[in-house]
């Protein structure tokens, strides 16, 4: 059953993407975030010692997914943060609040697997059938 899977990595010649699943839009975005950080690092080595909060809004579901992940990428790059825990709460129609748990990158304990440059709009898709949400997102790696 696809619903039991939280995300999978998809291949693209130049880049890497994810297909994320969820039973709600919140869960979909949480799983997509986990997918992104699984490309960046080995999530099993990240301790959830620090909390960050972000607020994101966008004109539609697809753009919201891009904005959300771009926000995480920004914190990753400017504060060297690695996140492993994600909690998304809807604030409005296309507005969410995210609680992120993780810790700063420590070269002694963490692996950096890839430099994700950006979250793209290429092949971007967020769809919903009943309570089964699915998103396809491609990164520039």
């Amino acid at each position, binding site marked *: 059953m696809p619903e039991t899977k939280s995300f999978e990595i998809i291949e*693209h010649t130049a880049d890497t993407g994810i297909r994320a699943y969820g039973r709600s839009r919140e869960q979909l975005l949480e799983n997509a975030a986990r997918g992104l950080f699984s490309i960046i690092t080995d999530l099993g080595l990240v301790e959830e010692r620090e909390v960050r909060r972000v607020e994101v809004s966008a004109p539609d579901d697809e753009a919201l997914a891009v904005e959300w992940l771009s926000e995480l990428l920004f914190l990753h790059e400017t504060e060297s943060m690695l996140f492993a825990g994600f909690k998304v709460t809807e604030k409005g129609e296309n507005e969410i609040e995210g609680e992120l748990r993780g810790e700063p990158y420590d070269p002694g304990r963490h692996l950096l697997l890839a430099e994700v440059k950006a979250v793209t709009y*290429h092949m971007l898709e967020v769809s919903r059938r009943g309570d089964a949400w699915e998103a396809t997102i491609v990164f*520039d790696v």
Partner: protein
Amino acid sequence: MRVPGRIFASEELIEKADREKALEQVRNVACLPGIEVASMAMPDIHWGYGFAIGGVAAFNTGEGVISPGGVGYDIACGVRLLRSDISVDEAGSRVPELVHELSRSIPAGVGRGGELRLDDRELDRLMTRGAAWAVEQGYGWPEDLEVIEDGGRFGGADPERVSPRARKRGFSQPGSLGAGNHFIEVQQVDQVFDTAAASTFGVEEGQLCIMLHSGSRGLGHQVCSEYVRVMDRVAHREGIRLPDRQLACAPIGSREGQEYFAAMACAVNFARANRQVMAHLARQACERIFGTAAERLGLDVVYDVSHNIAKFEDHEVDGTKKRLCVHRKGATRSFPPGHEEVPARYRGVGQPVIVPGDMGTASYLLKGTETAMAASFGSTCHGAGRVMGRRAAKRRIRGNELRSRLEEQGITVRAGSAASLAEEAPEAYKDIDVVVEVCHRAGLSEKVARLRPLGVIKG
């Protein structure tokens, strides 16, 4: 489609290009408003996001558009070649020492910034003046600027258009290599095809050269991300139908179009300053290894050219000269002899084109042509072009085995990790010799020299 697609390739290359997907992308770009002549692709074409990588598209300044996705996230990613008076044979065992010294001197890898920390005012100056800023700060020589595209300083930059977030990503990164396909290589000129042009470029067989491949780092990525978002809305507002949202664009004359260009120009200058600082660090590394001043080692810049960029250029369309906004995403400018934008000292020969190859094969120095002006808006290939995804490469190739194989070929390797090395394995790319040959035969560029890697530093 408003114009046809025009793809330069051999049968063999196009088969390797994810044919259907790449062709679809060429077709999508052909649908954008104001596109002139054709949606083009160079022989190293492969499936990208939005625009194919290896794509060239020129838009008129009337109804034409400018698209951040048509430039790419790594704005002004490009290549710089340093020549020297050092013969590889004479250097002997000092070559691996140099590779080691370079890897110690130039920050590389995921999340690694440089030694410089700039405040806002200084970053503004860097984004306005590009490599000229770096030279003013003591990184490199004034004459370097003569052989950098646009004299090292790209016009039209407005730092006001670069957001605090893009700045935050850029502050700590001037003078750092980054990761992915970026590299520093110590190379040997192993073949000269055009002795006269090579001599004009200061290149001869057996000589040691250093090649840098890097871009505008996080600052450029952020500028692109933000303007894709802006233009996503503009395209909607203007009723521009997009087959792929990543093609988001705005009319060149619109406020958003102008603002993107001004921000992109800042990132272009950032990339040029970045390579200028790294070239300076590379010269210092050579000085330490060879115990001689860089000037006496003849470590001159041959050229510095970007392969992800949008530029306003004059081109002839149906016998009339037109001002066009030429997007090159994974394509290199290839201007002919006599063109005023070719550095004075090379004007009799044509613009140097630097094409980085994969780490196990070769890179090339080419020269620009009249044919390219007529056929491809003065453009040629930018590299080998990927044929294998990064994860597929990591699955199939073991980084440590690759390292031993390269060392057996006499190539010293310094990489951030075995995995990052595997991603960039030679078999993940098309054959650079074939790509360059196809460009040569199509007349988009002419071969001047082939450079073989002796040492590779990957992020």
